[in-house]
């Protein structure tokens, strides 16, 4: 039928089905702001539009409902090169990160201000109730609304939202607009979904309904016969290659334990068959025609089941080693079942599949016996954490096509080079035949560090020649995407009466689920990122990661740190109570200090031990704890109001800034003909603002405006190698590579400028904006570029930089929480949450604040609301955002503050350290210890629910 309506002020006639979903229709018309984040569940609000002046979700509308209507999308806000008042406010506050839902937010706030020019907090919460926003933690939107509201009265009104740092620097440490924010707010094509042409085929996956089963019969013939089905990929026609989904540096410290398709199903959602078809409808029709029968096996759902002597074996394929083969390998393979494929171990990682162990390691310093003998008090406790999901608002997506004999993938990924390596390996081609283009990424948080759909998409295109896309549904994100490992951590702690810790023993057991991606490194980071917070001479830890049939796990911000930190902080709080010492005082007494050597870290590696004992080059914990103590009024009396009791808690946190001796980053740059610069950074900006960081670092070195620098990044053809966006490496590794490249360019510019001025090079210097100044005069970059490219010139000025290091740059921080707990109902109110972080020099302070708010809110979500839950049969019950408990604006702490406390680190560029990841590490113990302070209940099973509190109070 033909629908007539007004779209963004213009009459529009549209031929489509009456029942067509309006989100799909409008996005198909090129209105990219109308996005899909939850497949029509009406929760996420990425698809919000205004119909006849009222905000509604487009995916809840069919075309027929729009007949005669007036429709407005976020594209109508602002004009070309002129952002709307709200869009500009969002940029000025620094709230735009991954940007996927920000056009929706801009439309919602515009609507709010038209209704209520000066809204209060309750009205703002009400207005923003329809949009799920994962990256920025909602808090900064109050500033956005306030700024936009003020500019309604005073269009020239300006306000600074984050402090600035480093008076000695011109650009680094100062606030500026994120360089890609306007593009995302305008909803210009920038995500993978915006690149997919109408003729692309789609992949739809038939997935296992059982957590543990054999496929005993699979017939796809009827499905193949459906017109429009291009191919169906199963275990019979996929590559016989074992690989790990983990996007880590090669050789990966993870078992290569998955085949693209196999006969054995190891989790609900495991792959049975992929239909590649010319439309979604055809693919779904074909999926329904696939005949499959299973032999259902007993599932293994938790650590205790996995380590039981008679536990079902999850991986019983023949094991091969690339190096370091154990002496008993033949014995291990005695009863192996080749139907499962094969499992390859790159090098010894403590992998014992017949015991359901994917990886294991032990570390040790000092004398444990003596350490505990020296203690006046010893306690031992076990702490557990549950499985949580990253929830990027943009679900995983990949689009592939052939360009002559080369495969091109437009990918929403954190690791373009690892994707290229893995895809080339799986396809059996050389890497020059594969080109990965990382598009803007609508949230990753670690989940897009893994290769979860690129393998299938690439194989489909490589074998058919057809353009193909694969876009996870929200349900697929929950059942077949990497998530946070489950952990069970037993800690034994000894201390003297004055609170001095004498020995720490940590037994860290993790549940990796069906595959071992990150099975060594995530759990290893549990002790590695918690134990060094409290340096102690006598420490022993064991890490054991078990296979099971829960849905997959993998990388998630913080890696293993949140779980290790939860256990260690909580047992310290428990011991402090036993000793009658204030928890914060005990933290102060035992915490790490600047200049200290972290002996225990010398015993922990990520597949490779550090070459030397790491040293703390910078640490601002002292001012952080002082400021935090004052902010939360730690020593003031706590209120009791009826059944509501108040409590306070604290946790200190640390992270890394990349992985020394393993990671590498590269950057190259060229001077354009007018003296501006094109920078090719290998770094993958996944919404954190890495491109902006690169731009600022280069501008600082080259004394030129940021607008004279263009960043091209994350493209395996056009930028140099970078390990990718993980391990908090962006600022330190990719940033340092850019700084080194810029310094090389600086040297060339100085040499050329000196020659043009006829002065010695040590007599000239770079001066803003883009000038080489000598004693006799000056010459601009444009003149140098012109001369360089002339027939008598030096050639175009090109420079590159490579960064590796053996040194660590540790960011530090603390979370302070104040909760109110209702002793009658068990309800928890998070009244105050202060996150204070030392990221060295904050390169872009307002974006750094956004990173802290977002990470804190994800951690708060995991602490209070979010959990992947299974029924007794091992079937996941939480498959949509509402059921899972995705946090919305009303879930944020009432008083929520992020504070930057600087230090000067010699490793990072201009003293900068990482910021994005550390923020998730402390909320759980800070909140749990605050809950105890309020009601006397120790919650050792994270996450924290009213029911658990009531049980702790013996009310149930």
């Amino acid at each position, binding site marked *: 039928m033909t629908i007539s309506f007004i779209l963004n002020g213009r009459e529009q006639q549209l031929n489509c089905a009456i029942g067509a979903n309006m989100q799909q229709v409008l996005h198909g018309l090129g209105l990219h702001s109308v996005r899909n984040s939850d497949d029509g569940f*009406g*929760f996420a*609000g990425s698809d919000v539009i205004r119909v006849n002046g009222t905000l509604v979700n487009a995916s809840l509308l*069919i075309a027929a409902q729009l007949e005669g209507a007036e429709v407005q999308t976020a594209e109508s806000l602002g004009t070309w090169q002129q952002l709307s008042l709200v869009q500009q406010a969002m940029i000025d506050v620094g709230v735009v990160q991954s940007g996927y839902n920000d056009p929706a937010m801009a439309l919602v706030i515009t609507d709010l201000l038209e209704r209520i020019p000066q809204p209060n907090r309750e009205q703002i919460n009400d207005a923003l109730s*329809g949009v799920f926003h994962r990256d920025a933690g909602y808090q900064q939107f109050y500033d956005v609304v306030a700024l936009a509201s003020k500019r309604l009265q005073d269009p020239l009104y300006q306000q600074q939202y984050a402090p600035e740092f480093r008076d000695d620097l011109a650009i680094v440490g100062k606030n500026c607009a994120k360089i890609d924010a306007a593009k995302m707010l305008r909803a210009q094509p920038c995500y993978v979904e915006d690149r997919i042409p109408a003729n692309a085929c789609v992949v739809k996956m038939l997935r296992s309904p059982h957590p543990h089963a054999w496929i005993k019969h699979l017939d796809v013939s009827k499905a193949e016969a459906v017109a429009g089905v291009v191919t169906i990929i199963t275990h019979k026609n996929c590559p016989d290659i074992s690989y790990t989904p983990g996007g880590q540096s090669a050789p990966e410290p993870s078992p290569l334990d998955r085949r693209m398709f196999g006969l054995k199903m190891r989790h609900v959602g495991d792959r049975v068959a992929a239909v590649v078809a010319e439309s979604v409808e055809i693919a779904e029709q074909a999926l329904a025609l696939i005949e499959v029968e299973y032999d259902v096996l007993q599932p293994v759902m938790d650590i205790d089941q996995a380590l039981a002597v008679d536990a079902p074996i999850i991986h019983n394929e023949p094991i091969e080693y690339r190096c370091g083969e154990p002496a008993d390998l033949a014995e291990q393979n005695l009863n192996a079942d080749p139907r499962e494929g094969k499992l390859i171990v790159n090098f010894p990682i403590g992998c014992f599949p017949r015991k359901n162990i994917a990886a294991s390691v032990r570390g040790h310093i000092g004398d444990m016996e003596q350490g505990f003998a020296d203690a006046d008090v010893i306690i031992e406790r076990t702490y557990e954490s549950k499985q949580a999901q990253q929830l990027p608002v943009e679900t995983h997506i990949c689009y592939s096509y052939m360009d002559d004999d080369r495969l091109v993938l437009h990918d929403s990924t954190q690791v373009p080079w690892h994707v290229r390596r893995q895809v080339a390996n799986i396809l059996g081609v050389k890497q020059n035949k594969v080109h990965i283009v990382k598009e803007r990424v609508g949230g990753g948080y670690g989940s897009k560090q893994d290769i979860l759909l690129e393998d299938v998409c690439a194989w489909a295109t490589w074998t058919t020649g057809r353009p193909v896309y694969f876009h996870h549904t929200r349900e697929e994100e929950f059942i077949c995407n990497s998530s946070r490992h489950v952990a069970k951590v037993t800690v034994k702690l000894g201390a003297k009466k004055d609170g001095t810790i004498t020995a720490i023993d940590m037994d860290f057991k993790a549940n990796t689920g069906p595959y071992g991606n990150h099975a060594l490194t995530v759990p290893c980071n549990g002790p590695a990122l918690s134990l060094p917070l409290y340096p102690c001479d006598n420490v022993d830890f064991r890490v054991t990661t078990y296979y099971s049939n829960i849905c997959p796990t993998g990388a998630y911000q913080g890696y293993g740190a949140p779980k290790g930190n939860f256990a260690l902080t909580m047992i310290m709080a428990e011991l402090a109570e036993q000793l009658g010492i204030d928890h914060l005082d005990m933290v102060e007494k035992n915490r790490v200090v600047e200049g200290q050597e972290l002996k225990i870290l010398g015993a922990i590696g990520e597949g490779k031990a550090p070459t030397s004992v790491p040293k703390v080059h910078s640490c601002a914990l002292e001012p952080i704890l002082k400021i935090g103590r004052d902010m939360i009024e730690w020593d003031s009396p706590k209120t009791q109001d009826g059944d509501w009791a108040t409590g306070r808690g604290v946790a200190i946190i640390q992270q890394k800034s990349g992985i020394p001796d393993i990671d590498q980053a590269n950057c190259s740059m060229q001077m354009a003909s007018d003296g501006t610069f094109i920078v090719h950074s290998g770094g993958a900006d996944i919404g954190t603002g890495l491109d902006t960081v690169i731009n600022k670092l280069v501008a600082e070195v080259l004394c030129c405006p940021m607008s004279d620098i263009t960043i091209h990044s994350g493209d395996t053809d056009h930028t140099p190698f970078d390990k990718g966006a993980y391990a908090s490496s962006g600022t330190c590794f990719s940033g340092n590579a850019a700084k080194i490249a810029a310094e090389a360019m600086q040297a060339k510019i100085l040499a050329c400028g000196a020659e043009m001025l006829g002065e010695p090079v040590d007599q000239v210097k770079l001066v803003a904006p883009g000038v080489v100044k000598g004693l006799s005069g000056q010459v601009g970059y444009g003149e140098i570029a012109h001369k360089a490219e002339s027939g008598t010139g030096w050639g175009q000025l090109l420079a590159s930089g490579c960064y590796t290091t053996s040194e660590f740059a540790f960011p530090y921080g603390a979370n302070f929480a104040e909760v109110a707990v209702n002793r009658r*109902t068990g309800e928890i109110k998070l009244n105050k949450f202060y996150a204070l972080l030392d990221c060295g020099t904050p390169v872009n302070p307002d974006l750094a604040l956004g990173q802290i708010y977002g990470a804190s809110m994800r951690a708060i979500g995991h602490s209070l609301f979010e959990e992947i839950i299974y029924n007794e049969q091992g079937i996941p019950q939480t498959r949509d955002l509402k*059921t899972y*408990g995705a*946090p919305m604006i009303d879930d944020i702490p009432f008083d929520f503050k992020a504070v930057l406390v600087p230090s000067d680190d010699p490793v990072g560029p201009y003293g900068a350290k990482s910021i994005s990841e550390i923020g998730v590490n402390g909320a759980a113990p800070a909140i749990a210890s605050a809950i105890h302070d309020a009601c006397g209940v120790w919650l050792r099973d994270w996450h924290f629910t009213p029911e658990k509190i009531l049980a702790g109070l013996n*009310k149930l």
Partner: protein
Amino acid sequence: MIEHYFRPKTVSEALQLMDKHQANATWFGSGSKLNATPTKTVKTVAISLSDMKLNQIEQVQGELHIGATCSLQSIIDHELTPDALKQAAAFVYSRHVRNQASIAGEIAAMQDEAVVVPALIALNAQLQLAGDLTVGIEEYLSSDRGLILKVIIPEPKCACLTHTLRRSAAGHAVFTAAVAVDAAGNTIIALDGMNTLGERQAKPIRLTDVEKLNLTEEALEQAISKSIFPVEDIRGSVAYKRYICSIVISDLVAECKQLAGRA
């Protein structure tokens, strides 16, 4: 998928269309549920109520008449709406959804939870149906469902309180309860959330046995505890649900009686 979309202007026209298409047809208020993935209709014919002028809220001889297609947000925004009903409508968390969802849809749709309905039960809402029928909301929920034209609140000023309990702001409700004390001093207690999540069939109940007992405090809590039969699911255990429902409803009864006493 909807293949035919009709916009009748009158009730009789709508009824004729339904008669003609019968099993293939569905009444179509706003589509917030019929178009949503978890509750998507399999019917192919939509009979829209959008042109039938059922979007008025008005006071008629002391009663509050709410047109079937009034959106939840318009009900919240209207000055005549009782506070408890405003509060109940706001239990649908997303403003976007409240802008679209109709009051009749909240009653008629098969959902996992019916967060608005307990307040309507407590307020003794009557439903005016096509065919000049008026039925109580409880009767409507337990019988064949006709076309709702109006929701009538007979005593909009009666004391009524409602409460929903969730772990996260937009998550599933552990339960939703409402209590009212009518002009005659009768207490009405309504509760939703005792059904199994995922079955898409909320079953709001009225605790009539408890209402008659006129108990307070612990005695009331115990009576409520014995009269409800929650099921264990991701929202909580049976013991937790029984405990929390009992104390929250008991508190609501006490507060509502105080409110009625002040009125």
